[in-house]
Each structure stands twice: as C-alpha cells, then as structure tokens.
C-alpha cells in the first residue's frame, strides 16, 4: 500500500491563549497549511487529559498534537509544564500499545508564531503520511465503513 494518496487524520489540542491565537494569526495572515488537522480548543495545554489522546487514537486519529504556550509564557503560569510531563509519560505508554512515539507530538506555539504553526502542521502531516495510517484495531473503521 503506497501512501501517496493517504490523507492522515490529525487531532490538535490547542491552548486558547497562545497556540489557538497563533493559529488564528496564521489564518488572518492568509498563510496556507495542510488542512488535515482538526483543532480542539482547550483553555490550557495543562487541561489535555491523556484520556483525550487515547480517545483520539481510538477514534482513528493517525496523529495527535498538543500545542501550548512557551514555558514561562503560560497564562496560567504552569499549565504547559504539566502538559510536558504528561507528554513524556504518555509517549512511553503509547509505544507499549504499539503506537509509534512520533504520532504524538508536543509543540510550543506562541500567539505571534503563526508561521511556526503553519510549519508544524505541514511537517506533522508529511511525517504521518510517510508513516502511513495507524490501523489501530485492524482497520475496524475501514471494515465498518466498507
């Protein structure tokens, strides 16, 4: 199965204060980037519960991204530090479940870094595209769909 025409489905948890605004800035600045990522807005990257990531993969996401403010910039002081710890631990857990570590990324995007958000989305999409679909549970969905 070649992957060229494979369109990965990505889920992004963006914190309102920095990353979501950054994404918004990319939009208002008319930057174009891969549409594969679907965004869920949370008040702070610290809010992202590991269950959300697992739920996303279960539902068929090929890659999950958490993006928060730069360390020290967090509107709630420490939220992003919590996200960082959870990301490190969760990556290990995902490997044990057979999900490649690269499919779960943590990025810092500040409100002004519209360009950076664009770069992250494109890179992440390419990377997942090269890795191919996740087919977590033997392609239940495909079977269900088919």
């Amino acid at each position, binding site marked *: 199965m070649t992957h060229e025409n494979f369109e990965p489905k990505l889920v992004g948890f963006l914190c309102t204060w920095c990353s979501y605004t950054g994404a918004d800035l990319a939009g208002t600045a008319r930057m174009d980037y891969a549409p594969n990522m679907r965004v869920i807005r949370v008040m702070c990257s*610290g809010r992202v*519960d590991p269950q959300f990531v697992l*739920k996303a993969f279960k539902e068929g996401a090929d890659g999950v991204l958490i993006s928060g403010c730069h360390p*020290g910039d967090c509107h709630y002081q420490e939220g992003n530090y919590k996200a960082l710890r959870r990301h490190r631990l969760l990556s290990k857990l995902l490997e044990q479940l057979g999900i490649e570590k690269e499919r779960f990324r943590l990025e810092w995007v500040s409100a002004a870094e519209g360009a950076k958000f664009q770069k992250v989305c494109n890179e992440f999409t390419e990377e997942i595209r090269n890795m191919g679909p996740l087919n977590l549970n033997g392609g239940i969905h495909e079977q269900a769909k088919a």
Partner: protein
Amino acid sequence: MVKLTIDGKKVEVEEGTTILQAAEKLEIPIPTLCYHPLLEPYAACRVCMVELKGETCKLVPSCNTKVAEGMEIETKSERAVKARKLNLELIMARAPAAEKVQELAKEMGIEKTRFEIIDPDEKCILCGLCVRTCEEIVGANAISFANRGKDRMVFTPYGEPSEACIGCTACAFFCPTEAITFEDIHKRLVVHEEMELGPSTAVRVPIRQAVPMVPFIDEDSCIHFKTGECKICERVCEKEAINHEMEDEEIEVEVGSIILASGFKSFDASRIPAYGYGRYENVITALEFEKLVNASGPTSGKILMTNGNEPQAVGIVHCVGSRDKKYNEYCSRVCCMYSLKFAHLLKEKTNAEVYDFYIDMRCFGKGYEEFYHRLMKEGTNFIRGRVSEVTDMPLTEKEEGKLIIRVEDTLLGEIRRIPVDMVILATGLEPGIDQNEIAKVFNISCSQDSFFLERHPKLAPVSTFSDGIFLAGACQSPKDIPDTVAQAGAAASQALALADKGTFELEPITAVINEELCAGCQLCVSLCPFTAINYNAEKGISEINDALCKGCGTCVSACPSGASQQKHFRDEQIFAEIEGIFIE
C-alpha cells in the same frame, strides 16, 4: 523682649538678638564682610563697628554684640565711621583685587588706600567664611587658618590636597570675593545623555520642564549624607517640608486595574560602529541634540559643536537602528518627524547647510506632510538613501577637519560624500530597559519585537490577556505623542469602565468539584498555581474558591476520580468533540 534705640529710632526685639539684626529690622544699613546669617558671627573684619553710648562709650562689633535693655547705639557716629573706614582701607591694601571690598569702599567714600599694597591680585580678605562653612555647615573641616599675623592664610594641612575635602564647593559659594574658586578638572566638552537639564545643586528640580515642578534631594551630592551636618535647606524652608530622615519605603496598594505605561528606550547608537558615535565628538544622538537645543540645557539653547563654535553644515541620518534586519526590523514611527523638526530648528537658529538622509519620509500625521513641504522650501537638502558610514578621513582639502557622510543616493543612483561639521543620528525606539521583568511581574506576554502584546491589535488594542491590566504609550509599540495621548485616554477609560461596573465578572469556565466523587486525595490542592483549592478537613473533601480559580483546567485533567470538572470544557464535551471529528 528688649527695648533699645538705634540712631534715635526705638525698636523692640527678643532677647539674644544682635545689634545688626535689630538694625536690619529698622532698615538701617551696616556694612559687613565676614558676617553670614547662617554662620556663627566671627567678628574678625571689624567693618561693622558701631558706637555704644553710655558711661564708657566704646565701639562694639554689631554682628555679634547682643542687645541689652536701654542700649543706645549710633551707627553713624564720627568715631565709628572713621574706624570702619580705616579698617576697610587696611583690607583694601591686603586684598586689592576683591571687587566686593572696592564696592564697599566706594559706598563709604574711600577712593584709594593709604597703605602699602603687597600683592596687587590678592583677593582673600581672611574673613574666615570658607573655613567656618567647612566646619559649621559642611562638617568636613578640610581647611583652616595657618600662620600668625600678616602671613595668616587659609590652608590645607601641609598644603597638600586634603582627604577630608568632599568637593562640595560650599567654601567657594560662601566666599564673598571669589578668592576660592573651583574648576571641573576633567573637562567634558561632549554633550552626553547624562548631562542634566537644569541646576546641578544637591536640592534641585529634575529638569526645568519637570511636571510636577517639585524639588528633590540628590543623596549623592547632598552634604548631609556625607558628613551628617549641614541641613541648611531644612532650616530655611518655611513650610518645614524637608525631613532628611525619610527613607524609601515599599507600600502595597490594592488596585482594581493597572495601566502599564513603562515607556521606551532609545536605540544605543554606538551599536552601529560605522556611524562613529562615541568615536567622533560631533556625532550626537537625537536625544543629545534635544538637550543641546533645550533652553535649560548645557549650552542654554545655542547649537554649538564641542569646540564651542557654530556648525557650518549638519547631517541628519534617519532610521538609525530601525527598519534594519541587523537591529530592529520595525519602523520606530517618530524619527522622521522629529528629524524634520531638527532640520527646521537648525535652519532657524543657525545658518548651517542641512542635509537630511532618509529612506521613506513618513509624515503620516495631521499637518505632517505640509510641514515637510515647508522644510523643502526652507532649503533643507533631502537625500534619499541609507547612510553607510561617517568618517573623518578627508580625500580632498575641502573635507579637511570635517565629518564625511558616505551615502548611496538612490535617486541619483550614485555614491556621494557629504562633508559636514555635525551628524545627528535619528535613533529609533526600543522596548524599555526592564521590559521583560515587567512582563514577568504582570504575567503578560510580549510580541516578537518584545513590545507588550495587546489582547487584540484591532478589537482590544489597550488591554492585555490578563483582565484589568491595560497598556499605553511606547511600551506597546513605538508611537509619537499624539498617539500616546490618545491611547492613554483609551486605557484610562477602559480601566474606569471596569471599576465603574461595580460587579466583578467571574471566569465562566472555572472548575468545580463534585462532592460525592471527591475522595479527598488532595492531589489537586498542590497542583493549582493560584492556590484556589483548599482541603476541607471536616467534610474530608477539597473545595474550589470560585473567585481565585482562573479556569485553566489542569486540576480537572489530573483528578483520578474525575470529581473535578471544568464548566464548558467537561470531559464528555471534549470526548464528543473528538468523536465529532471522525464522523464522515
């Protein structure tokens, strides 16, 4: 109270007043040389002698003789005047070059002294005012008298510079005949930023145009903080508004809202070595030129080079440190207009040739463009191009002793060398020195050029992400005075609006703990950065304080039992969102 008569006039004064003070009350002039109201009377010059009538009528010094009941004083008796004149003649012989003595002599009608003049340019009349000032007021005791009789002189120990001297120049200030003067040993011709704009005494107003115009005490140069003495200002201030014991104190003020207007810092021109700031004396920054032009500046408004004469040709260089990838990419917005102002002032105050090096003339404001056209009519030479270098190496004798500005004139399409006497660098604006600390303290974020980040460039330009904190002025981005004033008004009204409402909007998205589910594990308590959660011992559960909770949701994701839920971002809602993504 003591009653006495002076020259026939009756006067009543308190006990302990001197005859001189009583006479002053009656506006009877008595000459003095070694007397000063702030010092103990020394009674050495003997020029203030008056006649005290009585059984042994004798002459007494009016400066230190205390009045007594029923005293009868004659200030103009023949014997007193004769003695005073003779004493003054003696002083004239000792200090022929002292103007004050010559004036006093004319007043008393003495043309020439009959005594031998030893040193024609001697000014010191040995009145001791300097020595006593140094002892009684300054408390440094750096100078005193030496030798006896005719060779008495004011001296430092062994004639060497005295360590006790704190260089306060009080002695020169009190010297009636300028026998003691002081000179600034390290001559500073160059006009530099730290040059003060106004008097440089220990008690002074910051600058003449300070608002409010309130004097302050500069601790570094105030004598009291060096020797513990002086406090003359405290003594003479009628309102008793001075208290040297006051200390800086930190006070906590409860406020509803904060407006950050921490201003800007001008670009440090020495970061561009090519322009030669700091190397050539006559390359100055815009702020220094402002001080040069300011009436209370070091040259009281005259535009002079460091050697004191007027420049024949002046170059103004725009966008120094702005619109430049190597320094600041943004445009500092104000330099064009103040440079035009400089050009106009130069034309008005001097007949120098003015060259203005610009890239784009940004006259965006009301009446700005018209001002630019006026400048062109006045004959300022506008050269479009970024200046590459300022050098003093002449190629032709015409450039001898001049500063040569090398520039690529983009309109003519050639490289030109303009010889000038003075170069003004229109330095741009940069965020204030402690911009980052302020951002950290108020927990607001900065934009890429590290000016403060407004909540939204169009919809909320004066507020920040933190409620109740607003921005005004150049700390948010470079702007000129009209814009700053407008923004300040906006910020103030926003702050007032917040305060006026009377109610306090709570965050709608705070977390709440479900009492049945909460097992009291207190994991969330230590987690919350805003200490909004505290453990309720009786109930054995944790509770969230609505007013403090900012709604970040960190506790919700950490709660093992899911007892803590964030309104509008409940787990189910997010799960539903995730599922929603994958519905085809």
